[in-house]
């Protein structure tokens, strides 16, 4: 069966660490970093990147349009 695999890129300088994407992600891929960006915000980052399905939930709720989403269909051998 084909499986969807996704990947996200967060614009860490634009991110304000509002946490909405972290709460929204159904796969618990994202978390706020312990490091801060140049404005002092703890930006969002993919800590469980392998779990991402590219569902776009994080990017849709992001108020600052920081998240870019990629998705591929992976065919599994039977």
């Amino acid at each position: 069966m084909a499986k969807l695999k996704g990947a996200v890129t967060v614009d860490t300088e634009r991110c304000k660490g509002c946490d909405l994407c972290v709460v929204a992600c159904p796969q618990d891929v994202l978390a706020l970093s312990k490091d801060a960006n140049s404005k002092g915000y703890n930006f969002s980052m993919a800590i469980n990147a392998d779990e991402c399905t590219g569902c776009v939930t994080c990017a849709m709720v992001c108020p600052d349009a920081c998240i870019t989403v990629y998705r591929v269909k992976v065919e599994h051998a039977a």
Partner: protein
Amino acid sequence: MDIQEIKRPENLIYQKPKSLLDTPMHYCPGCSHGVVHKLIAELVDEMGIQEKIIGVAPVGCAVFAYNYVDIDWQQAAHGRAPAVATAIKRLMPDRYVFTYQGDGDLAAIGTAETIHAANRGENITIIFINNGIYGMTGGQMAPTTLKGMITSTSPHGRQVDINGYPLNITPLLALLDGTCYVTRQAVHTVAAVRKAKKALQKGFENSMLGKGTSVIEIVSTCNSGWKMTPDASNKWMVENMFPVYPLGDLKDNG
């Protein structure tokens, strides 16, 4: 499959819309304004109307909207966005004209302009961001503030015997014959964001069809003004704002 292999241009499915400029938005972290700006920019890109759309910005947090969405903007005096939009649309009927207003702008100082523009059936789209508070000036009580809601000017909560009732202005506008489409949406979940985008698209399309005024209220959060985290604000909005301002279409004349 390696993550870097997935991150290729051909696999791209979502990115910042081109009409949304790189300027960082001055809004507080988690502010609903950002999502609505993003939806407007997405629609401008998808409908290919960047050269044909004119926004009228309010006084309020969204006063700098021209820094963020790459379209033509006019900034109006406080509350007068529907009057300015009326003039723009009458002089340039081939443009999509919309106003972007908060509850302080639309439901307080601009109540008269809003009601009369809607009553005249001006072919404009009114986007109304309702977070029940004056966000920009420091979280004071607005006409839309809920009963018992604590703000900086109602520290013991809004009391109806002194401050009156929350002004539910969108159903008032739905009563007017000049409006063709009146809806209330939110942007706190993916499903809500998608619905809000459809509503905005319909509003923009209506402004070219000559049917009358479209009003799209977005029930929003002001986490700084409400003194909560963005996530807690969304939950508070669902529990407290939605019973007073229920989502859905109030009027749709097709």
